Every structure is written in C-alpha cells, then in structure tokens.
C-alpha cells in the first residue's frame, strides 16, 4: 500500500473540485492511498504494519493501514478524535483481542516476526511492549506494587531488585519525589495526573522494546508534561516509541516521525520536520495549523 507517488492518487468519482475534498472522499468511503514520505522507508523498522484492517462488529475502524515504525525513534500519531489512533495502538500489543467483537485483517510484524500469526505467544509478545492507556488505570494495590507489577508477574522475587526497579521507574516518570514517602499507600489515593505518571512508570518498569503511549499527557500539568517529554527524549534511541497526542506542539517537539490519520485511514506519514514545515497534502497542513474542520 505504501505507494510513494509524488502526486497523491485519489481515484474518485466525481473528480474533486479542490484538493481539500480528499477528506470528504474518505468520509464517503472512497479508495485512498496514504502519502508516505520516502525518508520513512530508509529507516530500519521495529514494527511494521501491513495492510491492517480492523472491525468493531460491523463497524470498520481501521482501513488498510500500512506503516513502518522506525527503530529507536519516536513516532507520533495525530488526527481528530475517533479516527482510530487508540485502536491502532491497542492492536500492536493485541489488547483488542480481549474484545469479542473485534475482527482483523492484515498483519503486523515485530522485528520481522508476525504478531497476528496463529500460535504467537501473546503474553510473551506483550512483555516486550509497555503501554500507557488513555485513561489512567492503576491497579487496586499499593503504589509500590503497581510499579513492580510487570516484574512480579515475571517471577522476580528479590526485594532489592524490585525496590531498585521501583525507584528508577518512578524517577523517570517524574513521580518519585511526590510518592517516595507513600509507596505503601493505595494507588487509588493518588491524583489523576499522579496516577497517569504511575502508569508510565509501570509501563517502563520491565524495560520494554516498544513503548505505546496513548495521550500520556492529557491529564498532566505543564511541569509534569515537560518531565514526560524529557523522559521520552531520554528513552529515544533505546526504545521504539509510538505516541498518540492531540497536542501539535508536543508532536513537533518530541517526535521524529508523525502520522496523520483520518476516519480510520492513514493520510500522510513522514518525518515530523517535513510534515510540519512542508506537508505534501493541504489537508495535513490544515489539520496541523488548526484550520481543519
């Protein structure tokens, strides 16, 4: 699907009077090929999404997504609400499998190995990915137990190792100073923003290869947001990060690559600098500059 046409191929009837009708065409259900900048394909991909479609019951939420997520880079997913960003993210670690109504087509590859092939050890797969959900979901246990949960289920028993993991993860998630005296309190007693950072600490506690973050900063104040962006900066290079955000500045500040999605379609995907400075499509520019809609 990743046809690198210089001009966007849009096979539609009736012919579009102006360029910005591509989105209207998508809304009508037309066939559409994403515009993918050539720079993406030169990267080594940790994760490769291949012609991926997903249905919630009868409703198709993802249409033939094809993306290569570069290794060690931060890739941002942007797009209007309901366009399928979370759905795509949740498909990567197969959390959507838990819903009975979900049906998929296509495949994803992690380091060249299929994620959706029959016989894949899903639990092992998920251990290689950390995930921060759109809404904070701390577990009903202490702050400490929350952070070390991924290590506990891996069978780690050593108190020293766990305590070390706990402190390191909380420091990275910019939460340590606030909770270091209340590690044994229930995680439910933290504020919303603290809970979200706790979930971030939990996601990185097991040192995953891929970090999936669904609007990690939506509930955070500017200071904590800044710290999380610093964390992302720090993790860059070691982890492959896929982050959903509604904040254009954040996307441009933190990410190396950006993908713009609309109604379940990938619209444009390329290096963040290119996408923000000289996008190939007017629609992308409109969305980024807020003229969209």
């Amino acid at each position, binding site marked *: 699907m990743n046809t690198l046409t210089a001009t966007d191929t849009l096979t539609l009837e009736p012919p579009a009077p102006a360029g910005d009708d591509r989105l209207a065409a998508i809304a009508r259900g037309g066939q559409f090929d994403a515009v993918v900048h050539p720079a993406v394909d030169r990267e080594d991909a940790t994760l490769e999404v291949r012609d991926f479609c997903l249905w919630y019951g009868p409703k198709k939420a993802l249409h033939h997504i094809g993306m290569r997520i570069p290794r060690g880079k931060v890739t941002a997913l942007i797009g209007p609400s309901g366009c399928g960003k979370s759905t795509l993210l949740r498909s990567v*670690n197969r*959390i959507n499998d*838990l819903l*009975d109504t979900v049906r998929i087509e296509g495949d994803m590859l992690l380091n060249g190995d299929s994620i959706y092939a029959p016989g894949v050890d899903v*639990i*092992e797969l*998920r*251990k290689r*990915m*950390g*995930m921060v*959900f759109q*809404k904070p*979901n*701390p*577990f*009903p*246990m*202490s702050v400490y137990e929350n952070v070390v*949960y*991924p290590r*506990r*289920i*891996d069978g780690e028993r050593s108190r020293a190792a766990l305590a070390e993991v706990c402190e390191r993860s909380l420091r990275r998630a910019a939460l340590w100073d606030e909770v270091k005296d209340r590690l*044994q*309190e*229930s995680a*439910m*007693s933290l504020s919303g923003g603290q809970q979200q950072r706790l*979930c971030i600490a*939990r*996601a990185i506690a*097991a040192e995953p290869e891929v970090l999936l973050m669904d609007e990690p900063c939506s509930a955070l104040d500017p200071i904590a947001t800044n710290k999380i962006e610093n964390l992302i900066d720090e993790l860059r290079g070691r982890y492959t990060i896929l982050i959903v955000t509604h904040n254009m500045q954040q996307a441009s500040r933190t990410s190396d690559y950006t993908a713009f999605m609309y109604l379940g379609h990938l619209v444009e995907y390329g290096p963040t600098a290119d996408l923000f400075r000289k996008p190939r499509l007017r629609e992308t520019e409109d969305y980024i500059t807020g003229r969209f809609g």
Partner: protein
Amino acid sequence: MSGGRAAPRRERTALFAQGEPMIWLTGGGLALALAMIAGLLALVVVQGSVTLWPGPVTRVELNDGRAVMGEVARSESVGATGGDGPVRRRLFRTGNFELTGEHFQWVADSDIRAESRPEWALVVERTAWGRFYGAPQAFLLDGRAAASDPASAWAMYEQHRLAVQRRLRERQRLESRDIGRVNRRIESARLAVKSAELRHGMGSVPHREAVARFEAVERQGLAEHARLRGRIEALNRENARFQLALATADGWEQAIPLADIVRACAPNRLGLAAKWAVYGSRWLEFLSGAPREANSEGGVFPALFGTALMTVVMSVAVVPFGVMAALYLREYAKAGPLVSLVRIAINNLAGVPSIVFGVFGLGFFCYIVGGWLDRSFFAANLPNPTFGKGGLLWSALTLALLTLPVVIVATEESLAAVPNSMREGSYACGAGKWQTIRRIVLPRALPGILTGTILAMARGAGEVAPLMLVGAVKLAPELPVDAVAPFLHPERSFMHLGFHIFDLGFQSPNSEAARPMVFTVTLLLIALIFLLNLVAVLLRARLKKKFVTGAF
C-alpha cells in the same frame, strides 16, 4: 415587526413536572416499609426481653372462696355477659401442675374479692413439672422440719443450695461422661464382633477372638456400671435429705426436693438490683444451658451452637464452589446463549422453594450418598444408619446448595464491577489470565464476594423448612462437637434456632409458657443475623477502603 414583542408567556410549571407528588409517593412507600420493619423489630425486642424478667407475684381471692397466686402473663377485655360494659380478665401463671393439672388460669376482675402481693410468694423453677408458686413453710432435713417459718426456711435453703447443685453437677458428669465412656467401649467391642463376622465369617478364629474380647469388655463394663450407679445413688440419697416445704395459695402443702429446684426467688421481696441479678442469671441459663420441660424452659445453647456450626460448615462448602463458578462464568466463559442459559438457571435456582431443597437433600444426601457411605464404611452398624439419616453435614450441604445462587450472583456482580481497564492494564504488562484474576480481579472484587458470602450465611442461618427433613431435631441428645474422638460428628442430628421457634410455637404441650420463649428465641436469631450483617457491612467498608479508594 416592532422590537417590543413580548416573550411568549409560559405556563407555570406543572405540579407533576416539579415532581412533588413523586417525592410524597416514594417517601411514603419508604416510610411504610420502615414502619412495618420497625414495628416487627419492636414487637420482637420488647416481647423477647421481658420474658425472663421476674415479674411480681399476685395473689387474688375469689368470690367463691378460692385463692389463686401467680404471675400475670397477659390481660384482655371480653364482652360483658351481665351487660355493664366489658370486663377485664387476666391470665395467671399459677404453675403447680401436679396439684391443679394446669399451668395457667384465667381470672376475671369481677370475680375477685381481694388482691395482694404477699411478701413470701416464691417462684420456684424446677427441673420437671414446670414452675411452683407458694410460700415457704418449712425446711425439711431428713423429713423433719429444721426451720418452720418462711425467713429461716429460706435462709436454710440459701445455705444448702450450692452444695446440692454441686452434687447435681457431679451426678450429671458421671451420667454423661463416665457411663457414656463405658457404653462406648462396649459398643466398639460389639462392632468389632460384627465386622469380624462380616469379614471372616461366623465361627472363624478372628470372630471367636472378638467374641471373647467383647465378653470380657462387657463383664468389665457391667461392673463399672454398677460402681458408677452406686456413686450416683449415694449422691441422690444425700441430695434427697434436703427439701423445701411450700404452701400454695389454696392451702395445699408440698415438699420439693432441693435437687429439683433450678432457681427460686421471691420477686415481691426483691429490689431492682436483685431482680436484675435474677434476670441476668436467667439469660445466662438461656444462652448457655440445655432446654428443659419440652424446650419451654431452660436454655437454647444446643440450638445456638447447632445453628452456628451448621452455618460455618455451610459457608465452607458453598463459598469455594460459588466463587469458582462465578469466576468461570464471568472471566472464562465466552458470552453466548449457553452462558445466558446457565445464568437463568442459577437465578431460577434462587427462586426454588426451600422445602424442595430439603426433599432433594433427604433423597440425595441422606439416602443415596449417606446410604452408600453406610454400606461402604459403617456396615457393622447396620441396620442403624450412621450417615444414612439427617445430620449436620447433610443439612449444611443442603443449605449450601440453597445459598449457592446467592454467592454466585453476588460474586459475579462484584467481578463485573471490576473495570475492564484494570484487566487491560494487567494484560498489557504481560500478565496471563490467571495472574490477572488472582492479582487484580479477585482483590478488587473481594468486598463484594465477602458481602455475598455473609448474606448467604444470614440466609442459611435463618432457613428452617429444609432442615426439618435433613437433620434438625426438637431435642438432640448430644452436641455435634464433643470430647469424644473424632470430636466433630457431622453425622449427628442437631438443634437449630429456627426449628426451635417452630417447635416452641406450634408443638409445645405448654403453649402459654412456650409463647414468650418464641419471642426470646426469635430475638436471639434476629440478633445473630443482625450481627452477621453488621460484620458484612464493616468488612466491606474496610476492604473497600483498602482496595478501591483511600489508604492501606
């Protein structure tokens, strides 16, 4: 159009839109429900707590020359026969059954010539024949009067009372413990003969040996019996020396052996503190003693104990199964018509009349399972059933079946209340299904599971109908737990508070005396269930704080 057009006038908001009538309606419904519950509770609490209070003893002389003495149980107004308005009549608890053939007597106010509260009117609670009302006349020592006025007779009674009670307790111990031990030894030797006969055949060597052993044990046991009976008789003879002679209101004199007296008091002489002491001692006997007089007097300890033990065994049986079933239904089973069908079946099970469970328990547990156990392990005891009859275990299992839907539904509900985002978070960390259930879902659902469990316990503790079929009895000779190995005897039948209420209320030969006891036992049962519910609420609040909000 000019700008001065008035805004369209709106009607005043209708009464129904404001919803005032609905507030009255719903509030009224609540008030009605509360009033009914409060009324029922008040009735039970008031009636239940006055039963054991030592009321004054009244003596009335009737126009026809007779005299009646006793406690006033209740009074009522009856339509007049003479035409001058309704007449009050009172029910006197007169006791003295062996003399009058009645425990109670109605007296109309119009028949009374004089009424008094004699100082020396004694209420004597006895081990048999019910209460005795009379004035102390003399204290008899070996049949001769050692004191012959009320005050000194009473003083002598107080002086000898404790020693007599001590001898009684010793006799009781000899009878129940020592004789029981001898009997059990003989019985087990007899069983050995029987099983040797079953295994090796009549006349075989092991059989003959067992017979010889049995005869030796029996000889020895009979000698032991004779010795124990001698000691018991000596105690009886000693106790029989002390008697209290009482004069009844209508002139009879009766000597009552001290050994027959459980408690005697002269309520008209007692101050408030002394009355409270009597009240307390009656409650103590009620809670810790065994019943007397066809359950209408004495205590309910065996019933209390049986209820508690049965409830515990039931919970041990029902909770693991209920929780496992709910876990499977909610966490593992794929939603579909089959699961819906199972759910409907479970809800229907909750609606099945409890007596049906009783019938099932009798047929399945007692006759099929119990019969099989008897044939396989207790063959020597046959034709006497061991497990093949009603008993504590079968009752507990029957009620476990009865309360299973409660536990399943409550557990399922609390599992469903665990947010899916928590499960997703756990899976995203690489946890497996069971790890997620054990570490996230169960702790979070625990308060709800416990509440369901305790509600099931309360339901089980209050259930009567099925128990009448599978093991609850009017009077159990032994508790299901005692000092005889194996200490817990789940095959024994037991007493139960709910069945006790039924028995007192509807089966008692002395129904007037039993009636107030119904309230007292009901009070006890309600208190027990209230306690269980209280524990449920507190536990839930605590766990909720721990796992859902707040601090550890």
